[in-house]
């Protein structure tokens, strides 16, 4: 295997500069079709609005906790747009925007963070694994699923999302290696948002870029400007195509930034400078795409407005539906431990029943 083909571009792939103007396009990647870019734009607008709504719901006590992806919308949306319906997605807790963009019910997506149940949607029906909290563990599952699809001669591929911090876990290493050895149709998508809670990238890794991890497994790799939707979508589309056509796994690192604190409960002032955040405002992925599409004359004011209307509608629906108190039957505690409750669990269920009767 040639070494060069495995190395990422020495600088992140970029199609659009921060000011929304096109740059010299990188070789080997296609600009996505306009219709896809417009669709991405609409989804980014809705996604950002949803994210803001979710953060607001934490203040109203309707969500226990919410990890925002504000600033990472290019990654969230491109990740979803690069996939087909029969592909699988393995997301983390931070990827709720991606999930609603894939069409999952927002209340079902927020069920975990609202405390209603650990996973509110149907992973089998949606082909979206439960949002994963134990960092990097999902990347191995993604390899297993990819191998399952291959075994069943299905043409689906798998995309596993992971953060910069998560790449430090041993499980990520094992996943990359298994993927390479099994030649599994899986794309690892690292959203390098520069922080793992409070820990900045410089304390996380001394690598020239995280994408340079690929070659150590024999995996094709790329790094991309994660706030340039055009670039992320282009590279992820190529990576998915590579995996789908039997090329094996692919590792993509997107350089982006977490604009909000880790979650609503976090106090980012303790570990990062306001100015750093302000600088990243200038790299905002949504504004950038909007200017770019305006500049290419494919986005008009009406389209912008209608996107925002759709977003408001969506947010209103989320607000209303999240306003109802979730209800769960306490006996469900015992129902999903095993396919059939053990005698011990039946006994414990009876104990709870007698407690509930007494009170």
């Amino acid at each position, binding site marked *: 295997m040639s070494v060069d083909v495995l190395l990422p571009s020495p600088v992140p792939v970029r199609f659009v500069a921060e000011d929304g103007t096109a740059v010299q396009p990188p070789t080997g990647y296609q600009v996505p079709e306009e219709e896809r870019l417009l669709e991405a734009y609409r989804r980014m607008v809705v996604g950002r609005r949803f994210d803001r709504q979710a953060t607001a719901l934490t203040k109203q006590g309707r969500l226990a906790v919410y990890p925002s992806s504000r600033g990472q919308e290019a990654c969230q949306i491109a990740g979803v747009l690069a996939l087909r319906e029969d592909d699988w997605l393995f997301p983390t807790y931070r990827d709720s925007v991606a999930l609603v963009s894939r069409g999952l019910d927002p209340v079902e997506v927020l069920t975990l963070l609202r405390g209603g149940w650990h996973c509110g949607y*149907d992973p089998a029906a949606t082909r979206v694994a*439960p949002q994963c909290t*134990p960092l990097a563990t999902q990347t*191995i599952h*993604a390899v297993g*699923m990819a191998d399952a699809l291959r075994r069943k001669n299905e043409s689906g591929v798998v995309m596993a999302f992971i953060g910069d911090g998560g790449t430090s876990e041993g499980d990520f290493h094992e996943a990359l290696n*298994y993927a390479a050895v099994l030649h599994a149709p899986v794309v690892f998508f690292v959203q390098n948002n520069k922080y793992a809670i409070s820990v900045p990238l410089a304390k996380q890794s001394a690598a020239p870029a995280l994408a340079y991890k690929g070659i150590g497994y024999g995996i094709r790799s790329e790094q991309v400007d994660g706030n340039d939707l055009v670039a992320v979508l282009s590279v992820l589309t190529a990576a998915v195509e590579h995996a789908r056509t039997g090329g094996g796994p692919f590792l993509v690192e997107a350089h982006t930034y977490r604009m909000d604190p880790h979650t609503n409960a976090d106090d980012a002032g303790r570990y990062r400078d306001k100015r750093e955040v302000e600088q990243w405002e200038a790299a905002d992925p949504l504004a950038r795409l909007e200017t770019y599409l305006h500049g290419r004359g494919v986005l008009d004011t009406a389209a912008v407005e209608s996107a925002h209307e759709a977003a408001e509608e969506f947010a209103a629906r989320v607000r209303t539906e999240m306003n109802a108190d979730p209800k769960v039957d306490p006996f469900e505690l015992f129902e*999903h431990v095993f*396919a059939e409750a053990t*005698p011990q669990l039946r006994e414990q269920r009876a104990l709870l029943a007698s407690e509930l009767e007494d009170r």
Partner: protein
Amino acid sequence: MTALSMAQALNAALRDALREDERVLVFGEDVGPLGGVFRVTDGLTKEFGEERCFDTPLAEAGIVGLAVGLAMGGFRPVIEMQFDAFAYPAFEQIASHVAKLRNRTRGRLSLPMVIRIPYAGGIGGVEHHCDSSEAYYVHTPGLKVVTPATADDAYWLLRDAIADPDPVIFMEPKRLYWSKGETSVGDRRAAGFGRAAVLREGRDATLVAYGPSVSVALQAADTAAQDGLALEVVDLRTIVPFDDSTVVSSVRKTGRCVVIQEAQGFAGVGAEIAARVQERCFHSLAAPVLRVTGFDIPYPPPILEHSHLPDADRVLDAVDRLQFGDEPDLAHLSGEAS
């Protein structure tokens, strides 16, 4: 009925499962051409090909995580951890995913998979090759935990485990791999999944054991019989689910109970059994439920393992303390710690 060693019985179970259900996959470290370090997977790659039985890269979290993904995708992985202590790197995958996926998804996903773990000592193995790790798994809700003591149970419990809709930790007492026993392949004699077996009846006291300790219990019962004591021997077979009814009816009958476990005692399976038995049989008990276990020490080097392992003598010492006479004998507890 054929006389098979436990390793052969397990091999037959894997073979039959692979034949009958094409969703079954066998993988792990060295399970392919080598046939596993204990030869439990001997010949499977040859018969079923690399697609069905294969070697993985050397990473246990990887093996378990891969199995999780494959099971989510409709397969039935039967994976091997090479030795007890080498399953620890997979502990997060087991505790946070294998045990919980059904629960997390309200039953929309399930993980019909089996994790085979050769465990316990008695074979002169060096460090990290002899841990009795069953308590870690039985304490983790969502896992079924099984351990055979005979070749026949090895075959049928493994078939049951593979057919089970839930993840099963299948603990193989490695020192029994080479023990031969009649095996009812094709014509089931073994008890059902979740049932304990009364291997020997007796009226004077009950010995509860599982896995590698069952033969110790039987040996103790043999010796005691020469002294006119009739000890009943219960083999748990499955620890989760636990067969309360078999254990409880035995102890209610005998009024005395000794629990035997090779693992270090503190907070082991034996503690659970003792706690359950006294909860459920208190008014039948003529003496406290006693435990005979390994010491609370790291598994010792081969030269000392016989001093550590519970043997029939240690069991009989405990039986002696079951107050068959009039006076409660608590001498063993009179030390500074009580």
